[in-house]
């Protein structure tokens, strides 16, 4: 791919991301579409997020209990599990699962609409495809991913509790009091802010890839794959950048 094509693609991506976000505050509002997308993204992802979060929390608690026991610091399991999950693992894990399910779905749905001339039909009818298709998906992602992250984080902490108390034989009271100690504004804000950005990135990347689909079923396959891969990479990079910025803003010393 030549440089001109890369710049042109980036320009198209930025325009779509900006206009998609702007559509939230500009008429016409496609509320029904946004609610449908929220149902698909939120309610549809609920159980898979619960399941993944539970096992991630349990695995993390297991690893930390083993290591901290060796150092004689088992009573800190709750604190370390809490900080890791609330600030980092909860938001990132939820975003990655969300990408695999919702991002791939968005990309393939829009891709098949492109191949079936449905997007052209919208344009012929004078409907802006970005407002009709992209804005509801952005809105649903930036609302549902934070909500799912809160639920996922809580379930991960429960998983951590189960391992700490029933496998590592620690006191449940100590575990929960450690968790309460880490539930300070700085930690909660650091974990709660990220999903908004992740949700926006996932929706924009997936919609852009979907709307760029060319070349039949093979093209659809590659755009869906590219949407998931690009979203995962961007989540990991954004997580690092956001962590760095948030630690600085919230006054943590590194």
């Amino acid at each position, binding site marked *: 791919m030549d440089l001109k094509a890369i710049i042109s693609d980036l320009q198209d991506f930025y325009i779509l991301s900006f206009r998609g976000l702007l559509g939230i505050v500009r008429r016409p509002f496609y509320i029904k579409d946004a609610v449908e997308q929220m149902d698909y993204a939120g309610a549809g992802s609920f159980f898979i997020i619960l399941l993944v979060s539970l096992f991630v929390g349990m695995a993390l608690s297991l690893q930390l209990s083993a290591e901290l026991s060796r150092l004689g610091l088992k009573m800190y399991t709750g604190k370390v599990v809490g900080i890791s999950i609330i600030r980092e693992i909860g938001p990132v894990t939820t975003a990655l699962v969300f990408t695999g399910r919702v991002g791939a779905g968005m990309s393939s749905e829009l891709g098949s609409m492109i191949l079936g001339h449905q997007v052209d039909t919208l*344009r*012929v009818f004078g409907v802006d495809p970005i407002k009709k298709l992209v804005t509801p998906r952005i809105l649903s992602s930036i609302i549902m991913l934070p909500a799912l992250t809160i639920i996922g984080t809580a379930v991960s902490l429960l998983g951590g509790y189960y391992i700490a108390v029933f496998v590592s034989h620690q006191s449940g009271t100590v575990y929960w009091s450690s968790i309460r100690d880490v539930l300070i504004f700085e930690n909660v804000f650091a974990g709660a802010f990220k999903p908004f950005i992740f949700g926006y990135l996932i929706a924009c990347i997936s919609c852009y890839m979907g709307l760029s689909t060319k070349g039949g079923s093979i093209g659809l396959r590659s755009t869906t794959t590219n949407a998931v891969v690009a979203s995962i990479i961007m989540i990991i990079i954004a997580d690092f950048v956001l962590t760095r910025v948030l630690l600085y803003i919230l006054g943590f010393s590194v």
Partner: protein
Amino acid sequence: MIVFDTVSLSFGPHRVFEDLNLSIGQTERVAVLGGSGEGKSTILKLILGLLRPDSGRIIIDGEEITSKRESAMRGIRRKFSIVFQEGALFDSLSVKENVAFCMREYSDLSEEEIDQRVMDLLRTVGVAHAKELMPEELSGGMHRRVSIARSLAACNPQMFLYDEPTSGLDPVNAENICKLILELSGNKQGFIIVTHKVYDAISVAKRFIFLYGGKILFDGNRQQLLDTDIPEIQHFIKELNFIDTCKSSG
């Protein structure tokens, strides 16, 4: 009036049109013929501004659309009604909702009035019984009929555009769609039908444009098409085994 003035278009290394000149009147019944990849459907997309040419001008009713912004194209597009290949119905909406789509977007009609108009349109195209079905439950012929009903609901078009309306249909359904196309255009409305089925084109159109190698190889009436000695067209017609049928039917 649609005018293509030295229009050129390429998709990557593939040159679709090279200095294409064409003019089509509002009441003409035109069939655009040609093999796969010759740019038949692309002509419709250029007319609607869904694609922009690399060079040249496209003029619709005296307005040059080539450099118009997307937001300014709505007025131009409302002059046409298009039925895309395979129907292009919205998968997530029922037949009724598909047909009502534009009325809900742009009209102030009440739900009862929309329902009434939808039913009228579905009756016109002969699929009123399918109003509650989803697109995946429709047969190929019903799909096209619903798509035609939806395009009629869109606006009050000056001209109809049909992109391969009979492809993938059995001969009976294809003939029914051709009859419907003729009925809808009546005596005063023109249409452009893009197809590779010569028999269907001959049964509905009066003017025939044959695309080959990025240029117009032939532009004439039915008799001129059947009598032409251009080898590519003779081959195209004979290969499909339609010429004899057409000649015997007069």
